[in-house]
């Protein structure tokens, strides 16, 4: 499937794009992280800033919180660099760190969109949020033909938004998503099917 040009494609440097990394690249990356090499971290921040920030925005729906967690995630990468397993993709590890930070925040603060991450398999029907609620996702809307989809994202739970992003935007494999979420593969599949269905049903008639 061809991917349309977007702001993201311009930020994916072939030099360090972890999805294309070889084993040697990953070994070098792991060694640099163990050394807490600031130059390496600078490059990683430059390279992964859009993907990480988007992931945090999708999870939190809050620009200020996403910025705080963005910085905190990279500090964690510095502190826990020795824990990076070179056999896994760097971005999977990065997203797992970010996700754990989001969950930490959701435990400290009562934030609706983050609470949804806590018990997503509860089978309780969710209430779509009021469309008048302004949020950063709404602010991100610029193109008329994509507005419906973006608004529909607001209506589905964060744990569906998360897997849809990881699968269809980040193009992570199912096993990689399961590693990020620390959940079984079957749960990931279930959330993807339900999330896709939820997104379709949340769309207004005639959109997309």
């Amino acid at each position, binding site marked *: 499937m061809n991917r349309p040009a977007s702001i993201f494609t311009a930020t994916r440097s072939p030099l360090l794009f972890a999805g294309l990394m070889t084993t040697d690249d990953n070994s070098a990356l792991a060694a640099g992280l163990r050394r807490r090499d600031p130059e390496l971290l600078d490059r990683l921040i430059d390279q992964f800033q859009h993907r990480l920030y988007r992931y945090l925005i999708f999870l939190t729906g809050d620009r200020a919180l996403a910025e705080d967690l963005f910085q905190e995630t990279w500090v964690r990468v510095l502190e826990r660099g020795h824990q990076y397993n070179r056999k896994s993709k760097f971005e999977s590890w990065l997203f797992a*760190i970010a996700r754990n930070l989001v969950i930490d925040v959701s435990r400290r603060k009562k934030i609706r969109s983050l609470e949804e991450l806590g018990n997503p398999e509860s089978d309780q029907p969710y209430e779509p949020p009021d469309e008048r609620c302004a949020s950063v996702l709404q602010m991100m809307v610029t193109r008329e033909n994509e507005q419906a989809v973006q608004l529909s994202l607001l209506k589905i739970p964060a744990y569906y938004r998360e897997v849809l992003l990881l699968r269809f935007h980040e193009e992570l494999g199912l096993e990689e998503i399961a590693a990020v979420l620390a959940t079984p593969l079957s749960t990931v599949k279930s959330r993807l099917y339900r999330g896709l269905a939820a997104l379709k049903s949340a769309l207004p008639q005639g959109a997309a």
Partner: protein
Amino acid sequence: MSEKPHERAQQLFSQSLIEGLSSADQTWLEAHLRECAACAQHAAATRELLRALRNVPLFIPSDLAARTQLRVRLRAQEFAAAANSGAVLWIITAASWLVGVLSAPLVWRGFAWLGTQLSLPKPILELGFVLWWAVPALVALAAVLHQRGASNGIRNSRGDHVRRFE
């Protein structure tokens, strides 16, 4: 046509996006989409939905990366400083231990001479010798533990829920 082929087609189409299909299922789905306008439209709409999902624009603050890089560098400097002070402390501790071991015979003779002069019982002399020899090492150990406790305290105050990713 009954509902079941359409349901199957929609299920298989979702599966093709999420998990992929076997060649037999793929062949069946393609044939069905060629024949069924409604299912083909549903598939096209789903593709358009995912295209739109990928194109959600992102307005990242222009200085966020620079601010983060600065913060990470400052934290890296803190780590480096802590590592240096830790190394110095270990060197001092090792030197102290070495001096203690090398000077032990002399100190023992000194305690023996003192015991003779003061007519002290041997257990008291031995206890005094052990304390004389061990106290510097215990002080150094306490300093190391204090330093580790302080650095762990800083980390814990920032939350500590990042699990090892294997």
